[in-house]
């Protein structure tokens, strides 16, 4: 038993941030994830935290090697992200980021479907909030599309969970067989894992988020889904195909992209492909590879988003076609960027090298030779876009008059720390493999493997040198699957929203007019027969509504004199009668 949910420090931090003085908020922002990380180191695999709910026993926390591996890296990157955003004075962004990190940690420790679902949805809302905090450009619309996509995915997931609970009578979150409820659950996970064609939200929304926000976004949603897939669907053949295809898909689209953070976003799709393929292969080695790659990926991708964000922060520009020649003004950022870029490319001595090839090696071991080869293709494309094209055109591209703002110390510190961690993982893979799910028997620095990697990277670099003029960035927009809903949206809005709205508005007006007439009639039923006299024409009280004249009882009442006359007459009659009829 444990007493505290691992997500608690993060969620508590998110809730107390608004209450502490402004000057202390950055400290609490950094401290919460650091505390969560320390808490994780105190947990023993096998510990659980349960809570009775209705007739179910909710498992708020289930600690094992797999959830710990994801928990460590989630809290670590949240800490790095908070240091990166130490200069922030934006309460909304800080709260959203902590809430998002807390929900992600909640997901990876959830031991039952209901807890998973609740944190899953908090994650969706908090991440959308984080996108909205950019308050600029396309962020509002992109955030809305993002939110719609995730709420839809969450809805499908919930349907699957209810079906699963009904069918099995238990809420325990374990491996699923491929029966009925597994499909909607897989679909819900696939949305968050950004498996094409369910991926367009990622490249659409991440580049629109604020600079610090995108560091957090790059880490959590997709990797929480990778965790959920590893837990629920290891060894599913469908995932091998899906993962390999998405690794290639992301790479091809990244080559076409012009926005630096969108290039990195497509490479999230591509890198998550390695993990999904590893989960699909499902052997011990492959699951290790997937977990290791998720761990390393979060760290180097966070670093890449930090460095790209630093460029955006300093220049206010985000497109390769508008950047260039930053080597004079931002050389430090290039150094840190290259740590991330070479890591993602699987360069020896860095984190990607000891994780990426673990997946590829597992594919080879399991005789998925073509998968291994295609993942190699994706690796070449990754080095081409992230390792060569992006830094070449950003730091060495054409000279433009770009004014750069200074970069806060926190940003540099976070990038330096992240670089150091990536380097440490690359230098001491044995320590890194120690945190993984299963024991690892893989030597990344075997001479032949080193040589093969060097061959791939060197000759990819050579090919880029020939290509570099043809690779000139072009200011263009690349259509993706989001075309279907972004193009359909105006039509749908016209026919489903506007037309229906117009109809309702017309009905509304009609009803109101009817009610108004009924009111008039109620106020003066005699107006129906137009018995009105000329009085109302001279009335000045309601000049706009000449016909309306409230009912006035006096108008139809005889003068008092007439009544008195009748009464008096009655008495006269009585008097007369009494005179005549009185007995003598």
């Amino acid at each position: 038993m444990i007493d505290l949910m691992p997500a608690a420090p993060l969620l508590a931090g998110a809730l107390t941030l608004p209450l502490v003085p402004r000057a202390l908020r950055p400290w609490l922002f950094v401290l919460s994830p650091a505390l969560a990380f320390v808490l994780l180191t105190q947990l023993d695999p096998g510990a659980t935290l349960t809570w009775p709910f209705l007739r179910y026993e909710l498992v708020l926390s289930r600690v094992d090697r797999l959830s710990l591996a994801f928990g460590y890296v989630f809290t670590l990157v949240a800490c790095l992200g908070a240091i990166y955003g130490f200069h922030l004075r934006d309460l909304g962004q800080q709260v959203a980021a902590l809430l998002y990190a807390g929900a992600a940690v909640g997901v990876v420790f959830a031991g039952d479907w209901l807890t998973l679902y609740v944190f899953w949805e908090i994650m969706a809302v908090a991440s959308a909030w984080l996108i909205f905090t950019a308050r600029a450009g396309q962020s509002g619309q992109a955030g809305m599309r993002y939110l719609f996509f995730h709420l839809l995915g969450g809805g499908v997931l919930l349907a699957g969970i209810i079906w699963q609970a009904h069918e099995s009578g238990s809420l325990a979150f374990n491996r699923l067989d491929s029966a009925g409820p597994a499909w909607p659950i897989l679909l819900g996970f696939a949305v968050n894992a950004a498996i094409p064609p369910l991926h367009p939200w990622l490249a659409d929304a991440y580049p629109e988020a604020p600079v610090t926000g995108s560091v957090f976004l790059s880490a959590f949603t997709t990797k929480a889904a990778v965790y959920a897939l590893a837990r629920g669907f290891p060894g599913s053949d469908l995932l091998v195909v899906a993962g390999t295809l998405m690794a290639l898909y992301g790479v091809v689209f990244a080559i076409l992209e012009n926005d630096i953070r969108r290039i990195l976003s497509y490479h999230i799709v591509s890198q998550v492909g390695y993990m999904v393929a590893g989960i699909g292969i499902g052997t011990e080695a492959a699951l290790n590879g997937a977990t290791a790659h998720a761990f390393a990926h979060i760290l180097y991708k966070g670093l890449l988003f930090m460095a790209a964000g630093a460029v955006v922060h300093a220049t206010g520009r985000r497109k390769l076609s508008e950047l260039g020649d930053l080597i004079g003004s931002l050389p430090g950022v290039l150094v840190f960027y290259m740590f991330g870029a070479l890591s993602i490319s699987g360069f020896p001595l860095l984190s990607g090298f000891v994780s990426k090839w673990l997946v590829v090696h597992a594919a080879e071991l399991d005789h998925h030779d073509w998968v291994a080869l295609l993942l190699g293709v994706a690796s070449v494309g990754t080095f081409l876009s992230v390792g060569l094209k992006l830094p070449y055109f950003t730091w060495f591209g054409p000279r433009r008059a770009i004014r750069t703002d200074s970069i806060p110390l926190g940003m540099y510190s976070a990038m330096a720390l992240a670089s150091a961690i990536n380097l440490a993982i690359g230098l001491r893979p044995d320590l890194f493999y120690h945190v993984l799910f299963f024991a690892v028997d893989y030597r990344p620095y075997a001479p032949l493997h080193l040589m093969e990697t060097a061959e791939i990277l060197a000759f990819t670099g050579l090919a880029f040198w020939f290509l570099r003029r043809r690779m000139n960035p072009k200011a263009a927009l690349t259509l993706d699957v989001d075309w279907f809903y972004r193009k359909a949206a105006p039509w749908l809005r016209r026919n489903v929203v506007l037309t229906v709205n117009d109809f309702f508005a017309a009905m509304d007006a009609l009803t109101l007019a009817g009610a108004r007439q009924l009111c008039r009639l109620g106020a003066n039923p005699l107006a129906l027969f137009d018995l009105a006299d000329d009085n109302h024409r001279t009335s000045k009280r309601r000049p706009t509504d000449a016909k309306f004249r409230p009912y006035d009882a006096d108008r139809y009442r005889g003068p008092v004199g007439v009544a008195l006359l009748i009464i008096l007459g009655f008495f006269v009659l009585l008097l007369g009668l009494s005179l005549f009829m009185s007995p003598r």
Partner: protein
Amino acid sequence: MNGKRTFQFALALALAVGAESLFLSGEHHGTAWWSNVPGFFAFFGFFVCLGLAFFAKALGKHWLQRDENYYQRGRARRD
């Protein structure tokens, strides 16, 4: 940056790496035929890079790429 010098250096490095692989032998981790072809991954890196770049560019040019305000124009018509 001296482009020619960099290129010569890169070429020399690449060729050195490619050449060395011809002499290196050891435990191949793959079972496919290509993992036993010396220098295979040098060709692989070079031609896959060219292929990917041309494939992506062609895909963009003939199908997927539009001007940057593509979606905004649609919205302007709608309202």
